[in-house]
């Protein structure tokens, strides 16, 4: 379809870069009374990807919501990316998405074909995930936004949080980094067609394949790498788990074109927010500034960060690479010695 509306021109921030910073979020919620329930297995306190509520000894409900302004101009692709990103939070908890609701904001003058395409992208991706969309809510807003509220299921004993890593765990990442930088460069029409195709392909890849593999192994912690960047999410995992994390920078797959943009100073605002949040906890070692920037880059629909028992690591990696060829073995969790939480090694 010929796309007359340039969707990204209507967006002030790109994708997960529009996320409110981790530190700011904690301040906004500070002082609000939090009620608990014995069946609430995962709540807000650990900054996890989704909440998990036990219904029975066999079944727990996983709930999450995610939406953002256009990150690409094609409305179908945007809808599908937003859905992929929203569904990811359920996979990150080890769950399977089943039901979803559309969350949508559209300008009053947006052509209905464009809105239709955006929704069609969302529905197609939900179906690919084995979930159904059963309704939703739409409001008028000059800046378009789209996403899903997703409900999934997981066995209560098999919930994967971002705070269960233990010393010795081996860390895997299932998608390369640099998506946020590429989509930022695309706003100035700097991204090559090959770079944009790669970014879109990554953002459209469900984390289902990675989830289906990891649930067969002794995974202690998992999260999806999105708005807070790899180092932001690693910081949350390390703090929540009471460990420190060591990353082998050379083993982390950095999209070459994005690294080039990072060197040129084409960096999203969210990268700087992530730095402000996580940098006090990071020992960057000898890592070059542009490489560090890539590790703080906010990802939209990024991959899973998985911490697995070292005895399972080789087998998991082999099966993971078959299902998700972009998977990488990037580091380890170690006993916390006080001080910094994240260490970068060249």
């Amino acid at each position, binding site marked *: 379809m010929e796309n007359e509306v340039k969707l990204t021109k209507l967006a002030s921030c790109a994708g997960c870069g529009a996320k409110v910073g981790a530190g700011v979020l904690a301040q906004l919620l500070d002082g609000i009374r939090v009620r608990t329930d014995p069946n609430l297995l995962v709540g807000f306190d650990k900054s996890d990807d989704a909440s998990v509520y036990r219904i029975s000894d066999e079944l727990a409900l996983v709930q999450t919501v995610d939406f953002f302004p256009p990150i690409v101009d094609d409305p179908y692709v945007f809808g599908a990316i937003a859905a992929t990103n929203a569904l990811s939070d359920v996979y990150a908890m080890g769950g399977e998405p089943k039901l979803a609701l559309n969350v949508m904001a559209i300008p009053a003058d947006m052509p209905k074909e464009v809105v239709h395409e955006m929704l069609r992208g969302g529905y197609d991706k939900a179906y690919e995930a084995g979930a159904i969309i059963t309704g939703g809510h739409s409001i008028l807003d000059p800046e378009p936004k789209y996403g899903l509220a997703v409900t999934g299921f997981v066995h209560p004993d098999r919930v994967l949080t971002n705070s269960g890593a233990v010393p010795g765990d081996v860390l895997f990442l299932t998608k390369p980094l640099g998506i946020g930088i590429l989509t*930022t460069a695309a*706003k*100035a029409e700097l991204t090559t067609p090959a770079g944009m195709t790669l970014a879109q392909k990554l953002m459209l890849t469900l984390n289902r394949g990675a989830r289906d593999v990891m649930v067969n192994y002794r995974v202690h912690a998992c999260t999806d790498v999105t708005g807070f960047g790899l180092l932001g999410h690693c910081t949350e995992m390390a703090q929540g788990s009471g460990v420190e994390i060591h990353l082998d920078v050379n083993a982390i797959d950095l999209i070459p074109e994005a690294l080039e943009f990072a*060197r*040129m100073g*084409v*960096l999203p605002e969210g990268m*700087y927010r992530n730095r402000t949040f996580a940098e006090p906890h990071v020992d960057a070692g000898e890592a070059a500034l*542009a490489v560090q920037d890539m590790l703080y880059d906010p990802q939209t629909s990024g991959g899973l960060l998985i911490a697995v028992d070292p005895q399972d690591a080789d087998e998991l990696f082999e099966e993971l690479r078959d299902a998700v060829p972009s998977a990488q073995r990037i580091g380890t969790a170690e006993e916390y010695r006080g001080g910094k939480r994240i260490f970068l090694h060249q």
Partner: protein
Amino acid sequence: MIDARGLSCPMPVVMVQKEVQKNAPQELTVRVDSMVCVENITRYAHLQGYEVQYTQDGGDFVLTLHK
């Protein structure tokens, strides 16, 4: 003098890149309105061998690049 106020990232750094590629100035002054732009332009300028200083002027930031 480049005035890149009111422009969101990455436009200000792209404006500086274009000027450097076209005219290779020994000295360049850039006015922006966010620290993100200051950081982005500083990264690019260092890559191109410029020294960078900036001052705050009300809500604006004025960068001076020189070789």
